[in-house]
C-alpha cells in the first residue's frame, strides 16, 4: 500500500511538472493540434468528394465524417513523440543526468505523455463537441458501454505506441538515423493503421498484411470500436487480444534495446 502511495506521489510530481512546462508553450500546443487536425480533415475532404451521394465500400459521407473525427481524437490520445526526445537525449548527452536520478527515465516520458494527451486530447474533444452541435453527421449515439471499451483500447494503443516510439528512439545508441526510421514507420502506418482510409477500403492483400502486424491495433481498432464498425463479442475480444500480444512484444523490444544500448552507451562514455 505504501509503495502505491509512493508511486502516486512520484507520478503526481512528474505530471505536474510536465503540465507546467507545457503551459509555458501554449501556442506550441495549438500548433500541434492544428497539425493533428489537418491530416484527417484533408483525407475526409477527399473521401467526402469521392463518396458523393453514394457509398464507398459501405461508407457514406456521414460514416467517413464519424470515422475521421474519431481518428483525430484517438490519434491525439495515442501519439508518442518519444523517439525524437530520446534521439536528442542520447546524441546530446541529456540522458546522462536522467540516468543519475533514482527514477528510470521512462517514467518522466510517461508523465509527459499523460500531461500532453490530457491537454491536446481535451482540446480535440472540445473541437468535436462544437462540430457536433452544428453538424449532425459527426454525432455518435450515446453508448456508455462502448465508450468504456474504447477508453480501454485507447489506453492499450497509447501504451503500444509509446513503447514503439521509445524502443525506436533507443536505436540512437547505434545509428544517427533513428528519427528517420520512425518517419518510415509513420509512412507505412499511414496506410496500415487506417490514417488515410478505413482498412476495409484497402486492397484485400494489403489489409491482410496489416492484420498480421501491429498497425491496426495502434489506431484502427480503437477508432472502429468508437464508431461501432467493430461489434460483436468475438471481434472485440480478437481486437483486445491483438493489442495485448503486440504490446507485450514491443515491451520486450524496448527492454532489449534499453539493456543492450545502455551497456554500449556506458562503454562509449567512459
Amino acid at each position, binding site marked *: 500500500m505504501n509503495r502505491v502511495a509512493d508511486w502516486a506521489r512520484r507520478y503526481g510530481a512528474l505530471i505536474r511538472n510536465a503540465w507546467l512546462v507545457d503551459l509555458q508553450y501554449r501556442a*506550441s500546443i495549438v500548433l*500541434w493540434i492544428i*497539425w493533428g487536425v*489537418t491530416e484527417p480533415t484533408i483525407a475526409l475532404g477527399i473521401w*467526402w*468528394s469521392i463518396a458523393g451521394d453514394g457509398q464507398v465500400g459501405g461508407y457514406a459521407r456521414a460514416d467517413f465524417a464519424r470515422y475521421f473525427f474519431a481518428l483525430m481524437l484517438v490519434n491525439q490520445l495515442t501519439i508518442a513523440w518519444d523517439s525524437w526526445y530520446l534521439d536528442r537525449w542520447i546524441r546530446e548527452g541529456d540522458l546522462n543526468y536522467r540516468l543519475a536520478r533514482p527514477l528510470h527515465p521512462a517514467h518522466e516520458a510517461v508523465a509527459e505523455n499523460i500531461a500532453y494527451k490530457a491537454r491536446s486530447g481535451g482540446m480535440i474533444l472540445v473541437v468535436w463537441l462544437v462540430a457536433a452541435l452544428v453538424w449532425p453527421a459527426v454525432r455518435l449515439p450515446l453508448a456508455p458501454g462502448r465508450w468504456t471499451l474504447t477508453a480501454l483500447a485507447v489506453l492499450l494503443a497509447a501504451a503500444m505506441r509509446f513503447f514503439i516510439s521509445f524502443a525506436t528512439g533507443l536505436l540512437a545508441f547505434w545509428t544517427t538515423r533513428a528519427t528517420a526510421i520512425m518517419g518510415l514507420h509513420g509512412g507505412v502506418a499511414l*496506410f496500415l493503421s487506417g490514417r*488515410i482510409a478505413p482498412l476495409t*477500403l484497402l486492397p484485400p492483400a494489403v489489409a491482410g498484411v496489416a492484420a498480421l502486424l501491429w498497425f491496426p491495433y495502434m489506431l484502427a481498432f480503437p477508432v472502429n470500436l468508437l464508431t461501432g464498425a467493430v461489434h460483436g463479442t468475438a471481434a472485440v475480444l480478437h481486437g483486445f487480444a491483438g493489442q495485448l500480444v503486440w504490446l507485450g512484444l514491443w515491451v520486450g523490444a524496448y527492454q532489449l534495446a534499453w539493456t543492450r544500448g545502455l551497456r554500449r552507451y556506458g562503454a562509449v562514455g567512459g
Partner: protein
Amino acid sequence: MMFRVPRSAFRVLAALWRLNLAEELQYRANFVASVLGTVFWIGTALLTLALFFRHTTRLGGWDYWEVVVLLGVFNALTGVIEAVLRPGIGRLASEVRNGGLDLVLAKPVDAQGFVSFRRLDVWHLTDVVLGLGLAGYALSRLGRVPGVLQLAAFVVALAAAGIVVYAIWVALMSLAFWFVSVENLSVLFDAVYEGARYPVTAYPGALRFVFVYLLPIAWTTTIPTSALTGRLGPEIAVAAAAVAALAFVLARLLWRAALRRYTGASG
C-alpha cells in the same frame, strides 16, 4: 524603393551559396539519404492516389495521370522549400526567441533577403529534378504534348507558385515576432501544405474557398498543373503572376511591421 535590389546582393548570395555547396559536398552520404527519402515519399503519395482511384475514376474531375502531374509539381516545390526556405527563413522563429536575429540585423544587407536566401541545401534540389521528371512522365502517359504557349504559361505559373510559397513562409515566420514562445511555426506550414497534394476541385466548397483565397496553396500546384495540361488557358499565367505579386507585397508589409516590433521589443 521597397523592391530595389542592389547588385551587391547577388554577389553576397553567390558567396553564401558557394560556401554552402563546399560544406554540403563533404557530406555526400546525405545525397543518397535525401534521394531515398524522396523516392519513399513519392511512393507513398502514389500509393495514396492508387487507393483513392480504386474507388473512383476521377478526383475533382481530374483523371489519375493528371493528378500525378500535379504530384510532380508538388514535389518540385517541396524541393525548393527544403533546399532554400526551411533551412533559411525556417530558422527565424528560434532566432527571434534567442536573439540570434540581432546578428542578422547588424549586417549591411536587406534583412528579409538575407534571412530568406542565406542557405542552399543543395541535395534537396534533386527533389525538383525528380518532381519535374515525374510530371513529364505523367504528361506523356496522358498523351498530351504541351504547345509552346502552354509551356510558357506553365513556367510563369510555376515561378508564381514559388513566390506564393515564399510569401506564405515569410508571413508565417513573421508571426514569430508576436508569438515568441513558438519555435516550430513551420509545422503549421507542413500541416496546411499537405492540402496542395490534390487538385483543389477535389475538396468540398468550404475547404476550396480556404485554399484559393485565404491560404492560397491552390495557386502553387493546381494552377501550374492546369496550365501545363491545358485544363486552363494560357492567360491564367497573368492571373498567377498578379496573385504572386500581391502575395509578395503583403508578405513584405507584414515582415516590416513585424521587424518594427522586434526593434521595439529589444530596446
